[in-house]
């Protein structure tokens, strides 16, 4: 088992050099990691994504109360009444973001994964993919994933779910010779699942990425080759 306090590598780059990156991530020394992909076509998804990952890293228990506290925090960022009509309407409609959170407990004896949206976690043994969550095939990346919304009405879809069952997966590093855990937003997730049977394996490609510059070079090259969607792209990697 790996040491408890080691922080994973984490990298993020925007969809284009002149565009604002609306992905956010957070890593705590307690083995809690979170990333969130903010939907650009919403009011202020970067702030919403930042609230989600910070709150998850501090308190990794996703409940309706947890979400209500997050939406309340977001609401305080703006004075709704003073916004011009178009911003008020967009504020009311909400900001949207995915949330992928993992808790590595007892050095990997138990790994709890929470995911809402299309950011994915990947459990590996060496270069082999052992499990992915919540998406297991590239074809499952849809155009309109269910995302967490800063306006409570936008989260009604959660009422139909069992939050302790439908949104979570429990994994373990036990029994894996060379365990690794990856968390990534959808562009990278699609890239990885599209090539899961390639040689060399996509895991071995990512394993070589150890610096922010190397991550940027890798993403730029894959985008240029048409193999990766041009989108904000984030990776958390616990090798």
């Amino acid at each position, binding site marked *: 088992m790996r040491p408890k306090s080691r922080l994973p590598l984490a990298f993020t780059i925007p969809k284009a050099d002149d565009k604002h990156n609306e992905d956010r991530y957070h890593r705590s020394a307690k083995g809690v990691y979170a990333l969130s992909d903010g939907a*650009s*076509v*919403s009011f202020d998804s970067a702030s919403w994504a930042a609230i989600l990952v910070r709150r998850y890293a501090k308190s990794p228990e996703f409940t309706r109360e947890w979400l209500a506290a997050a939406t309340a925090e977001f609401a305080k960022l*703006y004075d709704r009444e003073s916004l011009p009509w*178009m*911003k008020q309407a967009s504020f009311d409609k909400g900001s949207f973001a995915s949330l992928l959170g993992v808790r590595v407990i007892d050095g990997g004896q138990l790994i709890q994964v929470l995911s809402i949206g299309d950011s994915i976690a990947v459990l590996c043994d060496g270069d082999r993919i052992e499990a992915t969550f919540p998406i297991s095939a590239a074809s499952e990346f849809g155009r309109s994933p269910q995302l967490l919304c800063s306006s409570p009405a936008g989260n009604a879809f959660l009422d139909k779910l069992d939050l302790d069952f439908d949104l979570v997966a429990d994994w373990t590093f036990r029994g894996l010779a060379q365990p690794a855990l990856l968390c990534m937003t959808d562009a990278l997730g699609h890239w990885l699942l599209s090539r899961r049977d390639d040689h060399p394996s996509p895991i071995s490609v990512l394993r070589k990425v150890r610096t922010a510059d190397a991550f940027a070079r890798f993403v730029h090259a894959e985008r240029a080759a048409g193999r990766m969607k041009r989108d904000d792209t984030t990776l958390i990697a616990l090798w």
Partner: protein
Amino acid sequence: MPYQAEISRDNPTCFLFVIDQSGSMDEITETGRSKAAFVADVLNKTLYTLVTSCSKSDGVRNYFDIGVLAYGGTAVASGFGGVLSDGIVHPIHAISEHTLRIEERKKKVDDGAGGIIELTTKFPIWFDPKSAGGTPMRAALNKTMETVTDWCDAHAGSYPPTILHVTDGQSTDGAPEEMADGLRKLSTKDGPVLLFNLHVTTNGGAETVFPTSESDLADEYSRMLFRMSSPLPAHLAKFASDKGYTIADGSRGFIFNGDPQCIVDFFEIGTRPKLVADR
């Protein structure tokens, strides 16, 4: 495959609303309001929704160019008032900034803690109902063709323009069908222009929504509007199907005598872009 272009600030698409404002649009519908008032209300709501979908905390992104062409009497002109009346098509940022007025409306929303609260919301108005004179539809579609040709020339790589034409009466300046045929032949590299027609009427007749043939339509005029309409592309057909409409291969973007919800849906489906970029 047509209709695959991502819609972005660099490659916006265009929605052009062509609105009949002839005298007969003042007839009262089953909602108790005139056809013109109902259409103006739906159009205001549609623009509100489009602007909202482009609005972020740092401003309005120009994903869409929006035009309104109004015709009635002998006039074919921009349907916008004020500053916007100088042109037909404007970037959505300009639309957001130039309203006729802002009204206040109440709405009830989830408070996030199991309750409901009432919010006062600012609601922009761009159009007031108008209705007078004849129905110069041929001239209107001719102007539409000029406008769309210019737009396609300037945006060759974009998702092609969508034209939503709302009318209640027969053309009074000649047959419009050949203009519609010409319009549907215009294209960008991403596919042909889409022309959808909404026939509002108080004359009765069975409601017909996204039909595949003209055989069940009540009169020659509605049959002509059917022929003038583009088939629904797959992504819009799916969206219409998801909203509960019966869709088949060859369903066209045409509605005859739709109920109020159906008219609202016509605008919503017609302005549903395939992809919104930059997610």
